[in-house]
């Protein structure tokens, strides 16, 4: 995981582990996945990110072979597996609900796949122990799975999949059933696990924080369609459309603006005010073009004075939400509607109580302008 692999560490970079070509799935009248194409690179963590019901599990099920695609081909390691039954596909699935075998203990759960491969007993025992060590479950091998905590069950499910070193690890929202602290801890462990195993991983989540911290690349999906495929930083800074912009992190969407090019600057006129930005390569806009500006809360700042000055507007404070390292402040910005600011620390709560007038400075250096 991490950006190292995203940038591409040869000889892996160009190699494709899993390829979907025009894959689609309908359940009767319901289209779960629109025909889409996608390549998972060997050794990377690719995340499917999207709201509930957008077709993530369906896509995973098609790769694992539990659902037959209505259209398209699926290739694993260059081999067309579209017609191949699940048990011959060599994928490693971790289910949303874990799906551990309740009638077997931890050891037998992890050993199941190895037994199916008819490995010698000693080899099986050694492999199981190694996998359990890797997920920090050493010593629990004779426990019944029902006697395990949610986090431990999660680890058993992981161990059961990775012990076979599958061609692709399919993780379906593996952390969604865990409480917040445990989830944060498991994120770190998943990352370490991937660094040790380097297994090609397709990770499904609807938690954008999880996606940003775990992935080499993220596929943003909505209603069965791919919205954007990009590395986390790229996705955060340059969302391809307004769905991605609002789905990844917090963002303020400003009212429609008209652009005017003036020297080295772009002037946006919106709702009776003007905001200026320096011209940038990624802000290739034409004169008179109609756009929406998207600004992250961390690019809004409380100004020293209430009004006057470049990109500064007068606002009235609505609420503060204190978050320790920072405060999320909601302000009423007249024609711009309600804006959200991310202010470092908590001093702003006393300095500008709800109802008070403040000036807010909008930094457009990293703003995103998207056509309507």
């Amino acid at each position, binding site marked *: 995981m991490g950006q190292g692999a995203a940038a591409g560490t040869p000889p892996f970079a160009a190699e494709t582990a899993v390829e979907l070509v025009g894959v689609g799935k309908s359940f009767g009248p319901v289209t779960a996945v629109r025909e889409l194409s996608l390549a998972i690179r060997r050794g990377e963590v690719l995340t499917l990110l999207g709201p509930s019901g957008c077709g993530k599990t369906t896509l995973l099920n098609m790769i*694992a*072979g*539990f659902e037959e695609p209505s259209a398209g081909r699926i290739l694993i390691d260059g081999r067309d597996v579209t017609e191949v*039954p*699940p*048990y*011959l*596909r*060599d*994928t*490693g*699935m971790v*289910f949303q*609900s874990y*799906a*551990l*075998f*309740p*009638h077997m203990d931890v050891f037998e759960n992890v050993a*199941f*796949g190895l037994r*199916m*491969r008819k490995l010698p007993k000693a080899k099986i025992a050694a492999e199981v122990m190694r996998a359990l060590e890797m997920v920090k479950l050493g010593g629990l091998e004779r426990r*019944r799975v*029902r006697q395990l905590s949610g986090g431990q069950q999660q680890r058993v499910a992981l161990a*059961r*999949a990775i012990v*076979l070193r599958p061609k692709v690890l399919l993780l379906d929202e593996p952390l969604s059933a865990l409480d917040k602290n445990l989830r944060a801890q498991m994120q770190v462990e998943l990352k370490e696990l991937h660094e040790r195993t380097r297994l090609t991983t397709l990770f499904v989540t609807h938690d954008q924080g999880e996606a940003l911290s775990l992935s080499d690349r993220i596929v943003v999906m909505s209603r069965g369609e791919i919205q954007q495929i990009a590395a986390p930083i790229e996705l955060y800074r340059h969302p391809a459309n307004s769905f991605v912009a609002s789905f990844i992190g917090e963002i303020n969407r400003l009212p429609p603006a008209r652009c005017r090019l003036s020297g080295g600057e772009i002037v946006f006129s919106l709702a009776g005010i003007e905001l200026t930005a320096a011209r940038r390569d990624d802000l290739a806009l034409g004169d008179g073009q109609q756009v929406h500006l998207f600004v992250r809360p961390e690019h809004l700042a409380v100004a020293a004075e209430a009004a006057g000055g470049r990109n500064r507007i007068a606002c009235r404070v609505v609420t503060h939400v204190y978050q320790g390292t920072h405060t999320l402040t909601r302000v009423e910005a007249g024609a711009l509607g309600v804006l959200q600011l991310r202010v470092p620390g908590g001093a702003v709560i006393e300095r500008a109580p709800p109802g008070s007038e403040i000036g807010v400075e909008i930094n457009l250096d990293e703003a995103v302008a998207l056509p309507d």
Partner: protein
Amino acid sequence: MKHRVPRRRPFFLAFLLPSLLAAGLFLAALGDVLQYSFRTFIPGSLDVGGFTLENFLRIGRPIYLSVLLDTVTISVLTALFTLLLSYPVAYALVRARRDWVRTLLIILAITPLFTGEIVRTYAWILVLGSNGFVNSLLKDAGLITAPLSLLYTRFGVTVALVQFSMPVMIILLATAISHVDRNCERAAANLGAPPLMVFWRVTLPLTMPGVISGTIVIFAWTMSAFSTPQLIGGGKVLMISNLVYLQGLSTFNFPFAAVLSLLALLVAMGSLGLIRPAIRRLERRVALH
């Protein structure tokens, strides 16, 4: 428990009262049967004489032992064949993809419950009789010249009992199968198990509680089967209930009928007791919820 929730006890007792009453009545009847079994039989009279142990010695006679053996054998075979035939039906019933297949299977599986036992038994007589459906079919196909004797045999009785038992078994098994987590089966396939292996290592073990309780229910109720062996056995196949009937209502030997009844009860409970350790072990391995 007693001192903790004193206020709830009368409440629960009120609910228990009807079943306690029923249990009391059954116990009284059983007690009556028990006392009859120690009385002397007076031929030609409905009254019974004084205390004796002779009735118990009488069951040692080969003819009665063979009825007992037949009863147990037929019950075991019925339970096993019912299980073997019902499992695939229950499985298809739960897992069929198309709604109409499921509906059809439910109807086919359940309707026998709504035709009375007598009607069904006569239907079997039509099917198994020497000029019945099976024999005519085999004769027309040229496979046999003389009719096979299917009726009035242990085979015929067992076949009818199996059919009689299947709806209940199917319902019990279907319930168990529908509780199996599909993702567990998918996980097994994902780990490299071919379909039969998935069934053997995951589906079957997870439905074992249903299999066990279904088999026990069928075994127990076949042990007490009466009208099916009475009509299809035609007096040539005797199960314990038929013998009790014969002793009690033909020769009016109530004491011996009482002994036979107690014996049937003991054998049923005894056989359950025998397989109990095995069941315990299985259940501990499966330990559902």
